[in-house]
C-alpha cells in the first residue's frame, strides 16, 4: 500500500513540474465591472466565458506577432460577452502587460468584428495613466482592426513605427505598452475562444 501511495506522490510532483499554477487565491478575482460600466455604459448585459489559454495558443500568437503573452498567462481566463437588446454586441477581456514598474492590467472592449471599441486601465501604478492620456490613446486605437494596429508598431515589435510615433504624441511609452496589449488581446481572443466566437456569429446570423 505504501509503495502505491509513494508512487502516486512521486507521480504528482513530476507532473507538477510541468503544470501551470496560479498564485492568487480565487477570492481575489474581480469582474471588470467598472470597465464594463465605462466602456459599454447602460443597457448592456454580459456573461462570462472561461477558457484555457494553452501553451499552443501562446505559440500561435507568436505566429501573428513578434512577441507573445507571458508564460504565467497560460491559464484559465475570462472573455466577457456583451449583449444589447438580446443581440451580441461585443466582447471585453482584461489582460496584463509588464511595465518597468510592474504589472499593468488593461480591460479591452472589442466590437463584434474584433476591432477595438476602447480600453480602460484596471490597474496602472504610474501617475501617467490619467484620464487625459487614456483619452488620447483611445482616440487613436478606436475602431482599429488587428492589421491596422500592427502598422503602428515597428517590425520587431519593440518600438512604435514612424506612423505610430506621429499618432501617439502623448505618452508614447505608455502608448506602446497599450498597443502591444491590444494586439495580444485581439490575437488570443481569436485563438482561444475560436469555437465560441463562431457559435456567437452563427447565433447572430440566425437572429438576423
Amino acid at each position, binding site marked *: 500500500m505504501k509503495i502505491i*501511495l509513494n508512487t*502516486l*506522490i512521486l*507521480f*504528482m510532483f513530476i*507532473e*507538477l513540474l*510541468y*503544470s*501551470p*499554477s*496560479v*498564485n*492568487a*487565491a*480565487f*477570492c*481575489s*478575482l474581480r*469582474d471588470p*465591472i*467598472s470597465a*464594463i*460600466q*465605462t466602456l459599454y455604459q447602460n443597457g448592456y*448585459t*454580459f*456573461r*462570462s*466565458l*472561461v477558457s*484555457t489559454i494553452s501553451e499552443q495558443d501562446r505559440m500561435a500568437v507568436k505566429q501573428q506577432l513578434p512577441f507573445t503573452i*507571458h*508564460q*504565467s498567462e*497560460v*491559464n*484559465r481566463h*475570462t472573455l466577457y*460577452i456583451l*449583449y444589447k437588446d*438580446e443581440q451580441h454586441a461585443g466582447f471585453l477581456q482584461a489582460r496584463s502587460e*509588464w*511595465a*518597468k*514598474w*510592474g*504589472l499593468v492590467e488593461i480591460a479591452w472592449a472589442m466590437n463584434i468584428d474584433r476591432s477595438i471599441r476602447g480600453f480602460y*486601465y*484596471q*490597474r*496602472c*501604478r*504610474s*501617475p501617467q*495613466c490619467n484620464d487625459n492620456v487614456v483619452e488620447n490613446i483611445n482616440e487613436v486605437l478606436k475602431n482599429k482592426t488587428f492589421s491596422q494596429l500592427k502598422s503602428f508598431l515597428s517590425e520587431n515589435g519593440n518600438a512604435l513605427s514612424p506612423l505610430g510615433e506621429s499618432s501617439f504624441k502623448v505618452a508614447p511609452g505608455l502608448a506602446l505598452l497599450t498597443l502591444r496589449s491590444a494586439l495580444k488581446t485581439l490575437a488570443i481572443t481569436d485563438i482561444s475562444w475560436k469555437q465560441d466566437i463562431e457559435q456567437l456569429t452563427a447565433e447572430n446570423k440566425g437572429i438576423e
Partner: protein
Amino acid sequence: MKLITFTFKTASIISLLYLCFGASANTTNDDFFGANSRWSLDLSTRAIHNLENNNTAFVHVVGLDLHNVLSVGQRDVATITFQPYIVKLNNHKTYSSVFDHGNDTELTWRIANVNYTGFSQGQFNVRLGHFEIPFGLEYHVDTNGTLRQLTTSDRGIKADWGLSVNGITPIVEYEVALTRGSGNSFKNTGDPYIFSGRIGTPTHKNLIGGFSWFTGDVLHGKEVVERKKLGVDVSYYYYQWQFMMESSVGETAGNDTANVFIEALWKTNNEEISSYLQFGYQRNEINHQVSDESHSTGYWKAGIQWVSHQGYDISAQYKNKFKESSIIDIDPVLGVQLRYRM
C-alpha cells in the same frame, strides 16, 4: 510521528484528487466543476518561532480553492467561491477558538459563499455564506493564507457566516453585511451578531479611500464580547510602492479603543519579490467601570515574500514591539511559510 503520518495522509489524498481531476484546472478536466470554473489545490506549511519563550509551532494547511461563475441566458447571475481548508496545528501554546488544543486538526472555511449578481450585474449584488467582514483595508487586499496580515486582529474576527449586499458603481464600491458573529463555525451561543460595512472609492485607482463600521457581539470561545468600531482607510500606489493606513476608534466590552495601522510595501518590477514594513498602535481603556485609565502598545513587522510564476510562495516575517504595555505582552516572533498552489 503524528506530523509525519498527517503529512503522508494529506499527500496521499492530494495525489488521489490529483489523479482523479488532472494536474490542475488548466489541463484535461477544465470543466470538471462547471464550464466557467477555476480550481486549485493550496498547500502550505508555516513555522512560528517565539524568541521570548523559545517555542516553535507549526501550521500545516491543505485546501481546495474553487471559483465558478453561473450564467443564465445572456447574463452572469452568480459567483460561487468555495474554500474548505484542513488545518493541522502542531505545538501551539495559544490558538484560536476554532481548535480544541494546540495539536488539533480542523476543517476550516476561508471563503464559501454565493454572490448573486443577477439583479444589475455588479451594481447591486447579494452575498450569502462565509465571507470576509467588510472593514478597512482587508476589503480590497487579499491576505487569505499569507503571513502578511493587516488589521483583522483589531476586531478579533476575519470572516463570518451571513448575508451582505455589495456592489461597484463608477464612483463608489460598497459592502454592507449582517453576519452570525461566530467566525469559522455557525454557532448561536450567546446570540452573537455583527453588522459591518465599508463604503469607499473605486479600488482600481491609485488613491483609494474608505469608511467602515463594525458593531456587534463577537463570539470568542464560549463568551460574546461587545465590539464597536468606526474606521477610515487610505491606500496609495506609486509605481512599485504601496502605502496604506487604517485608523479606527471604538469600544471593546465597553472600554474605549483606538487603533492605527501603517504599511509601506515595495515590489520588484516583475512582482516576484515584495517586502513590507508595518506599524501598529493601539490604546485601550483598562476598565471603564473603575476609571478612564488606559494603556497603549505598539508593534512593528518586517516581511518579505517571494512568489514564483510556478505557484511557489515563500515568505518570512519578523514581529516585535516598539511600545510595551503592562497588560498586553507582545513577544518577538519570527514566521516562515512555504506555500504551493497547483
